[in-house]
């Protein structure tokens, strides 16, 4: 039997929908799941029907930031969530806005936040449904992370979650884990030019991967690449504080990065950095190809 899913858009840009549509095995997915409503996919019900009655449903997906005064089909999004959250087996917040509030915290709606978190801080409105919720943060979500989580729910696999309700399977890693530039990180070689193969972007170019949790360098995007492998800094899009300012430069105090890799103390970091800085590894200073 197909699992019934409701995709509800709150204050959103539809970026997660676009990302989801890049899932490479969509046909298989649609054999196993059925949207009772989705903002861009044809469904049996209209949003008005979803809101005016209660349609049978297994999983509620919420995309976008949440505010009491934001409405869909003339009904507050909060009310729609409350109605459907009672009947579903699980709720999944799709993306950083639905999880932490994201960029739409800056919008004109009042008290905008994620379902259970306003950035790092827990919120109260939906606390009774916290046990049912799984968070998939990301701006946008990684389609495979979302789909694999939906399959886990369908198959009643117990998901181990972190303190933000994100499956540890995908979020216990840092984005730094698996980046092809790790060698440059180890020896502190930045001198990167955007889009080039050489150099780590942690020291000057704003890469937040060492303190951002997710699987981008483990489960590649479009099965091909990741931001950091391609030469763009990780912008920390899975984190509660996303987005920060100045995404392309590293915030430093007297040359020392303000944010250090998760769990690495300042003394440890500076000691290691001092040692590697003392040496020049010629191979890492040169271009990899066409030198």
């Amino acid at each position, binding site marked *: 039997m197909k699992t019934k899913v409701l995709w509800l858009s709150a204050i959103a840009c539809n970026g997660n929908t676009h990302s989801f549509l890049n899932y490479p095995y969509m046909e298989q997915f649609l054999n196993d799941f059925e949207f009772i409503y989705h903002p861009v996919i044809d469904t049996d019900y209209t949003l008005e029907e979803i809101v005016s009655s209660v349609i049978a449903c297994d999983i509620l997906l919420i995309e976008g930031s949440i505010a009491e005064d934001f409405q869909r089909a003339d009904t507050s999004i909060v009310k729609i969530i409350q109605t459907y959250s009672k009947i579903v087996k699980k709720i999944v917040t799709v993306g950083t806005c639905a999880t932490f509030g994201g960029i739409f915290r800056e919008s004109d709606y009042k008290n905008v936040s994620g379902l259970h978190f306003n950035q790092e801080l827990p919120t109260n409105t939906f606390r009774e449904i916290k046990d049912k919720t799984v968070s998939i943060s990301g701006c946008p979500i990684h389609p495979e992370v979302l789909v694999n989580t939906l399959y886990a729910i369908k198959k009643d696999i117990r998901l181990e979650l972190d303190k933000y309700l994100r499956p540890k399977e995908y979020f216990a890693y840092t984005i730094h884990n698996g980046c092809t530039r790790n060698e440059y990180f180890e020896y502190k070689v930045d001198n990167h030019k955007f889009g080039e193969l050489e150099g780590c972007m942690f020291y000057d170019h704003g890469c937040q991967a060492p303190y951002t949790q997710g699987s981008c360098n483990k489960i590649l995007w479009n099965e091909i690449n990741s931001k950091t492998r391609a030469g763009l800094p990780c912008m920390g899009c899975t984190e509660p504080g996303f987005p920060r300012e100045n995404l392309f430069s590293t915030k430093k105090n*007297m040359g020392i990065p303000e944010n250090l890799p998760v769990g690495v103390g300042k003394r440890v970091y*500076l000691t290691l950095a*001092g040692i590697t800085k003392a*040496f020049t590894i010629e191979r890492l200073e040169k271009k990899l190809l066409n030198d």
Partner: protein
Amino acid sequence: MTDKKQLKREQIMQSALELFALKGFYSTSVPDIASSLKMSVGNLYNYFKSKDILAKEIIKYISAYLGKKIREVNEQNISTEEKTRKIIEVYFKTAMLKPEMIDYFLRIYLSTREVFNEGCEGMICVNEFVTEIMIYFEEGVKCGDLRDQDFFSAFGLFMGYLGGMVFLKGEKILPKELDEYVDDIAFNIYKALSK
């Protein structure tokens, strides 16, 4: 390493430091150091395989000594201005109580680079000391007290100034004791580094 062996190592380093300060680095030989401790040359080599290795271990020893003292200042819950003063006090106090340490740092480590080229690349052998200075700067900027700037321009101002004063003292040019300059120097350095 046993405590006893560590203690002996420290005694050797201390005697070597004193001899280097007295006779100069090149004129001091391993037998000189051994005889000042009434130990055989062979036994001394059990602790340090060569004079160059001893030289490098001494700089690490001094760096660790100063690093530990500055770390104690960094870990206090006080303003950057007070930290500035306390770090200067630590440095001058060391220069007064253990002049041979600072002397070694300034006259031997900084000016006998050929000895330290291999094994003490960059700032490896003074890591513990430099790390604490970095933390003092970083935290000062982060809390809004110090102006953000290149690390070395700040480091040079701080250490160059202190080193210069100790050097003048060593040359017997300074009319007063080092600690009598702490107030003015702390004021000058903080004023130069703050926002």
